[in-house]
Structure formats: C-alpha cells, structure tokens
C-alpha cells in the first residue's frame, strides 16, 4: 500500500516538473498530456487506497523521512491515508484529472500552455501534501503551496493588470489568515508538545478549555482565509480572473474546501469546544445567505458561480460547526463534482462567446451547445438540491442537521438560501441557454467545445447525478474515524413535510427564475430600469460596498501609514544610521589618504612613527603586567 501512497502523492510533482522543462519553449501537446496521464495514475492509486481502506478499515501511515529533530521537537515528513484523507484524495485527483484533460482543449490557443500545466500539477501536489500529511507542519506546507500555486494561476495572464491585482489580493488575504493559522499551530505545539495529529488530539482533552478555545479560534482563522469566509471573502470573486479550469479546480472543488477539511481534521478539538463550533456554524449560515444574495444580481457568469461556491462553503461550515463532520465532508465531495462541472460548462460558454461573461448578452445558446446545456442544467439541478441528484442528499442533510440540533434560526436561513440558490442558478441557465438569441446583436458566432472536452467532463456529470447514492456506504466508512451521528428527524410526518416542503420551495424558485428570465423582453441592462436604481440592487451589485470599504479604510490607511514609515522612519532613521556609518569610514579614508603621498620619505617617517607607537605600547603593557600586583594594592589602598 505504501507504494500506492507514494505514487498518488508524487506523480503530480513529476508531472509538474516535466511540464516545467518546457516552460519557456513553444507550446507542445506533450506538456499537457504527460501531466494528465500522471494524474490519471495518481487517481488510480488513490482509488486502490480507497478500496483498501473500505475493505480492511485499516489506515496506511508512513514516514518518508525525518524533517526536523531538535531537542523535543520532532517533525517527520509523515503521511497518512485514513477515511478522511482518502475522501479528499479521491475528490482532488478525480477533479484535477478531469480538469487537466479539459484544459488541454481549453488552453489550446494559449501561449502559456506548458507553464499552465506546470502550475496546475504543482497545485495538485501541494493539495495532496495538505490532505495526506499526518501533522500540522506538513499541512501548513501544503497550505502555503496551494496558496502559491493559486497565486500563480489567478495571475496566469500576468499581462492583464486586473489578473495580477486579483492574484496579489488573494495571496495577501491568505497571508493574513495564515498568520492566525500559524499562531494556532504554535499554540498546539506549545500546549501539547507535538504536532502529530494523533498525539496532539490525544492530549487535548486534558487541557484547559480557554487554551483549547484559542487554538480553535486561531486555526479557524486560517480556515476562514482559505475558504474565503466573511470578512476575508472578497478575494474569491476576484480570483475569477484566472483561466476557467483553474476556477473549477482550485476555487470550487479543492483549495477553498481546505478550510472545511481542516475543521473536520481537527474534529477532536472542535468537539471539546462547542461554543466555537456554534460560532463557525453561525458564520457559515451568514456567509451562505450573504454570498447567495450577491449572486442574485451579478452580471458576470463566473462571479455568480463563485458566489455560489462561497455560499455552499457556508453550508459545509454549518455542518462542521454543528459537529456533523461527516455531513460536511459529504457535501464537500458532492459539491466538488457538480460545481466543477458547472465551472467547466461556463468555460465552454466563455469560449463559445469569445470571453464574454455577461449572461445578458447570451441567450438561446442551447441550440448550438447541446452538450454544455445538458451538463450545466444537470449541475444546476444538483446544486439546487432536487431529488435524486447529489445536492439533494448532501444539502438537505445539512438542513436536517440544523433542525435536529435545534438551531432553528440557522435552519431557516439555510432553507431560504436554498431557495436563493435555486433562483440564481437557474437565472444563469435561463439567461445563457434560453430566450432570445441576444448574442447576435454583438456579432458573435458561438460554437460547441471540442468533443474530448465534453467527454472529459462526463465523469463529473455522472457523479453529480449518482453521488447521493453513496451516502450510506460513505457513512459506514467515514464513521470509523469521525463521530457517528445519524441525523434523522424522528417524526416521519415532520420529515416528509420538511423534505417535500423544501423540494417545493426550491422547485418554485426554479420556475420563477425560468419565467422571469426566459421571456422575450429581456434586454441587456443599461442602468436605466427601475430595479437597477433601487437601493437593494445597488447594495448587492456593489457587494455590500465591502470591497470599497476595504479600499477606502484599510488599503488607503495602510498606504498612508506605509508612506509615513517610509519617509519618516526608513529614510530619516534607518537610512541615516546606515549612511552615517558608511560616512565615518569614507571620511576616515578621505582624511588618511594624504598619508599615501607616494613620497618614500614621508612613508618612512610614518613607519618610524608606527614602530615607536608599537614599542611604547609594548613597554606600557610590559610594565603593567609586571607591576599589576603592586597596582592592585595601590588602588585598594585608595579605596577604589
């Protein structure tokens, strides 16, 4: 099994390095095919590990080598394949294999083709390190690695000002959160004396509750950054500047779910501090609603899906915060499939529309893009949570969790958000694929994507449909490791009312969206309609003015402060000190260079002066050494 573990872990790295060899040369297909094939191998290895974990219920634990060993600190490069990490490995390798194959078609005309695959495979490797590590230090390496690769991929088209800006924004926001995470890790080490998950969690029940609370809070701050939870959420929507496969892989399926993974991984810790868990759940519910509301009015196809991702991450945090870790992980898995599918579909549409992102400028695309239309519709149905697709099983389960745990406010918020989710998803589908063919006004001739891209997407389609049926077997597997709590509403009448009620509510939202956005009088908004000038619309389209708030009150203030530090402290204190020291030497040199007159006679005089000086010193020290005893008695006689 160790062999499969190492294969699964390192083949993406090999793929990345292989593609990197061609980084500066011209586009070659092989730089895309080899990493994809290697990822396929990684996927197969992960699958074998999954089967092994499923059948034997045993985890694989290896230690590659010692990384740090000083004093009491011992951190190995250790990897573990247990029920939780194997789930993540399957999700990561599956989605990334699909995305890699898809990207061969998507990036076909891009000059940076080779570089793209190098970054993308490097990302997968970092993500694998993140999920497979058996200690916090390894997790942190992966954590930073995915952050770095995300930076490189968001800013992939670095000649675009907006792309580099978004890349930096994402990176800096994540740095802020990473500081919290790092403090959390330090606290873990400080209090438990180890960073290995097993040992650290074993010690935790004996620690004071205050300490545990702080650890929980700081680790969650790290999770908030990666999973773009409020108030560190703005980077996710801006990250859509990157190529669409990147959005599908990193900003929908894998990296942004790392925060959820962290909370699930640290479940023994969060079980001890239910108050922090409740905070996580409340924040999750808030973000679910908050992000969904912004998706309602947005006019950028990718941003709508990004907000939807944010909203679904909120759902996952609700489940994780309420202690239903396996539900969170299950929704993470299902969400990865249908959301990646949705993004890849959006990528097809973008290609067809020559990078046009405004769905109001599309319409009626179903006639030319049948495959994409079917896939995106099914993905949206799954996202909305209609029976019997994946979303129904995972998302409704979270609603049930909230209900069973008696958090009715959270339940109502999530229920309402489910309606919003259905509405904005189908608003998007209706605007893109139905109604008038508005794109003709802009002289665009759309075309369907390559066939192999659609075939590459089909595993995701299949999983988006059937993932829900894994629920029972998944529950059986994962609860070997995580707390086995079944969330059943005891009264069957309540259960059926709730389920059917939710389905009806979601269904009505979908119908409303269809009715509203397939009509013939949809025009490209020009900012004159009554709705567009209403306060609510303005608030939502400007993302609650949060980016502007950050810009005005944080970025500008920080810039001012930096300016002061630059002109006052750096230039006047630091630079002045350094320049002063340099000046002393310079001046000394300038003054003493007259000695080097070149006149032998003068030099000889200096030489004599030097000899005399050294001789006198020798005499003085000699006398001092000789009479030190007498000097001491003399000085003590004086009373010194």
């Amino acid at each position: 099994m160790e062999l499969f573990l190492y294969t699964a872990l390192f083949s993406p790295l090999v793929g990345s390095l292989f593609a990197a060899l061609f980084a500066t040369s011209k586009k070659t297909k092989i730089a895309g095919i080899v990493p994809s094939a290697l990822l396929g191998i990684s996927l197969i290895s992960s699958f074998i590990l999954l089967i092994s974990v499923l059948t034997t219920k045993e985890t694989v634990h290896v230690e590659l080598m010692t990384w740090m060993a000083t004093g009491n600190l011992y951190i190995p490069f250790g990897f573990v394949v247990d029920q939780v990490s194997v789930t993540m490995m399957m999700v990561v390798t599956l989605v990334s294999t699909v995305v890699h194959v898809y990207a061969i078609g998507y990036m076909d005309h891009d000059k940076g083709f080779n570089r793209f695959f190098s970054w993308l495979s490097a990302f997968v490797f970092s993500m694998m390190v993140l999920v497979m590590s058996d200690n916090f230090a390894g997790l942190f390496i992966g954590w930073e690695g995915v952050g770095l690769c995300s930076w490189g991929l968001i800013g992939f088209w670095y000649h675009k000002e907006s792309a580099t800006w978004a890349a930096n924004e994402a990176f800096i926001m994540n740095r802020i959160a990473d500081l919290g995470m790092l403090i959390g890790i330090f606290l873990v080490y400080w209090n438990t004396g180890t960073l290995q998950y097993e040992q650290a969690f074993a010690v935790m029940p004996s620690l004071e509750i205050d300490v545990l609370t702080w650890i929980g809070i700081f680790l969650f701050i790290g999770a908030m950054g990666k999973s773009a939870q409020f108030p560190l959420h703005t980077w996710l929507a801006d990250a859509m500047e990157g190529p669409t496969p990147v959005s599908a892989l990193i900003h929908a399926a894998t990296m942004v779910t790392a925060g959820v993974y962290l909370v699930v991984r640290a479940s023994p810790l969060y079980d001890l501090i239910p108050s922090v868990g409740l905070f996580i759940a409340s924040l999750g519910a808030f973000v679910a609603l908050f992000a969904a509301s912004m998706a309602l009015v947005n006019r950028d196809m990718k941003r709508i899906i990004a907000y939807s991702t944010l909203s679904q991450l909120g759902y996952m945090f609700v489940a994780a915060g309420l202690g239903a870790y396996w539900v969170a992980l299950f929704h993470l898995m299902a969400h990865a499939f249908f959301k990646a599918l949705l993004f890849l579909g959006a990528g097809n549409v973008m290609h067809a529309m020559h990078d046009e992102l405004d769905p109001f400028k599309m319409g009626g695309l179903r006639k030319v893009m049948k495959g994409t239309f079917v896939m995106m519709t099914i993905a949206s149905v799954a996202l909305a949570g209609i029976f019997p697709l994946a979303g129904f099983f995972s998302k409704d389960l979270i609603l049930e969790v909230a209900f069973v745990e008696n958090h009715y406010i959270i339940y109502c918020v999530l229920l309402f958000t489910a309606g919003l989710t259905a509405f904005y998803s189908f608003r998007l589908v209706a605007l893109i694929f139905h109604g008038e063919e508005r794109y003709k006004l802009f002289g665009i001739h759309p075309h369907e994507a390559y066939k192999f891209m659609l075939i590459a997407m089909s595993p995701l389609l299949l999983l988006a449909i059937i993932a829900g049926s894994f629920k029972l077997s998944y529950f059986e597997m994962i609860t070997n490791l995580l707390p086995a709590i079944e969330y059943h509403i005891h009264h069957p009448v309540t259960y059926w009312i709730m389920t059917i009620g939710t389905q009806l509510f979601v269904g009505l939202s979908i119908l409303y969206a269809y009715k509203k956005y397939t009509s013939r009088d949809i025009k490209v908004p020009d900012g004159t309609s009554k709705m567009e000038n209403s306060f609510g619309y303005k608030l939502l389209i400007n993302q609650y003015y949060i980016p502007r708030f950050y810009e005005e009150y944080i970025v500008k203030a920080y810039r001012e402060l930096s300016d002061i530090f630059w002109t006052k402290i750096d230039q006047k204190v630091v630079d002045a000190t350094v320049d002063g020291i340099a000046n002393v030497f310079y001046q000394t040199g300038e003054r003493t260079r007259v000695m080097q007159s070149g006149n032998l006679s003068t030099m000889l005089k200096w030489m004599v002066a030097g000899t005399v000086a050294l001789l006198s010193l020798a005499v003085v020290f000699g006398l001092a050494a000789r009479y030190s005893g007498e000097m001491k008695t003399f000085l003590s006689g004086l009373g010194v």
Partner: protein
Amino acid sequence: MEIGLNHYLVLSTILFAIGLVGVMRRKNLLMLFFATEILLNSVNISFAAISHYYGDLTGQMFAFFVIAIAASEVAVGLGLLIVWHKKHNNIDLDSMSTMRG
C-alpha cells in the same frame, strides 16, 4: 673602567637613533641605504653583546644572518638604484612618487 654589557647597549641605542634620524631626514637614496645599514648593525651589536653576556651563541648566529640578508638586500637595492639613476638621472627621494594614493 671595565667595559660591560651596558656600554654596548648604549652604543647600540645611539647608533640606532642615528640610523633612525638618517632614515627620516635623508633625501638621497644612497644615504638612506647607509642609514639602514647603521640601523641593522646597531641591532647586530646588541645581539652579539647580549649573546656574549648570556654565553649563548644563538644571538651571534642571528647577527650573522642579519649581515647576510643585509648584504643581499643592499645588492638588490643598489642594482635598482643604478637602474633608476640611469633612467632619471637623479636619486632624489622626493622625485619618486609614483605610488601616490
């Protein structure tokens, strides 16, 4: 009055001082060599005197070495001096300032 170690050392010191003044004051390169020789030989006198005083031959051996090295040094130095004189037609120290910093 018997001549003892102190007399030799005083002589050596006087010679050394004379040599030192010569090194500092002389502008003629040839004179400078003479001054150097005086310096070296003043040291030789003290070597020989102290060696005799202690009955240890090491000092006298050292004096021989100094003489040998001084001879070779003077040979090289005089060679350079002659070349310099041929080229510039003087051996004034003040005219040699090509090593000006």
